[in-house]
């Protein structure tokens, strides 16, 4: 990030800057002790992408975790972009590309370290099985960046029958309870079936992520 002299700007003026210029404004304002201006500029940049990032994350992550994953991805992108000289001499649009790369990495990290949900752990069979634990896995930046998580999820979904796929969509991604999912699916499906299908799906996603990296 190139250093620049700080000049106070209105919100609208900040929004009219490129992403990279806003980042420069944040650094310059903070260096000048203008905390309010720095805060506002950074909030404007993040606000501009928050909705887009949340929708992208929502395509790959269960609904109840979308906000936290999207926020973490945006913050990681900003943090890396604020490194000295991060985008010096780069073209406009670099921050956007970088942000979406980090979004993809954050989604991969999410699936790799996904802990079992509370109601799943209520199941005796899953409590006893520790081979399916979604414990934390350290992921290097390079490693995570090579994985196409959308393709991984698609692949895992593609290996399911139509009924099982719908069950995963409802339970894992749309966050219906197991009971609601079973009732929606009908045709004799039980809560236990829903849990088992979800467990196998997550195991498969993790296997595919490991194979992809």
């Amino acid at each position, binding site marked *: 990030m190139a250093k620049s002299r700080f000049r106070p700007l209105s*919100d*609208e003026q900040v*929004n009219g800057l490129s*992403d990279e210029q806003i980042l420069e404004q*944040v*650094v310059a304002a*903070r*260096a000048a*002790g203008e*905390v309010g201006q*720095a*805060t506002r500029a*950074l*909030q*404007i*940049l*993040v*606000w*501009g*992408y*928050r*909705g*887009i990032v949340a*929708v*992208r994350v*929502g*395509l790959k992550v269960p609904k109840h*975790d979308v906000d*936290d*994953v999207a*926020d*973490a991805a*945006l*913050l*990681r992108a*900003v*943090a*890396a972009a*604020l*490194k*000295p000289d991060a985008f010096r001499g780069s073209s406009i649009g670099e921050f*956007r590309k970088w942000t*979406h790369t980090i*979004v993809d990495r*954050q989604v991969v*990290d999410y699936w*790799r*370290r996904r*802990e079992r949900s509370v109601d799943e752990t209520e199941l005796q069979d899953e409590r006893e099985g520790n081979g399916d634990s979604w414990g*934390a*896995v*350290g*992921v*290097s*930046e390079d490693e995570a960046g090579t994985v196409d998580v*959308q393709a991984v999820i*698609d692949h895992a*979904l593609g290996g399911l029958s139509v009924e099982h*796929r719908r069950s995963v969509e409802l339970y894992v991604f*749309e966050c219906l309870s197991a009971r609601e999912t079973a009732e929606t699916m009908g045709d004799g499906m039980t809560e236990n079936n829903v849990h088992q299908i979800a467990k196998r799906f997550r195991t498969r996603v993790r296997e595919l992520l490991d194979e992809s990296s």
Partner: protein
Amino acid sequence: MNASSTDQLFAEFIAAHEAGGSAPDPHSYLERASTDERSALAARIDDHLASTPRRPWDPAAFEASLSSPLMKGIATSVDGASGLWPALLPRLRNTARLRRREVVERLATDLGVADREEKVAHYYHQMETGLLEEQGVSGAVLEKLARILGLSAEALRDAGRALGPADAPPGAASPALFARTTATEAEYSSEVASAPASPGTEEEDPWDEVDELFLGGRD
């Protein structure tokens, strides 16, 4: 559903996005696609969103967003000395489904200082509230913490270093400011209320391994 139908759904999504300014929920479009076509449509929508610039300026929507945990965390971060840790660490904890005291417990254990968990809690609290400078935090702490929270130590370091050096917030590391909070989460606030006391004076609590880990420098 044939290919043109998928094209139509994608076109409808784009039109709704352009008309509304913010990206619409894609699930209502995906549900209308056949099972076979759904993944392809999701990929097209994803690609489109990844190349979309910031949303158009909307002062009312922006102001409304400022009460969100993300925006409050950014404000705390810019005003503090810990880079973006005050904004990022609570988000990572939530995703990991860990309460602050659970993170502290695991961190103290992993660092081999389980018997000084209160002191670790004090320093971790400072990281989340913008009172602890990144330069003082050792690589060992960040490696263990990154593993607990599910990202790389480098990414965690970047977040703490973001925004550059700043004057230490008034009263940093002071017991008087220990109750400072980001006020972003009820869960977090309630934990702060029961946060352990800060380390005492040198006479009461001499410099030890935990101080070294959090204040002694990067390596």
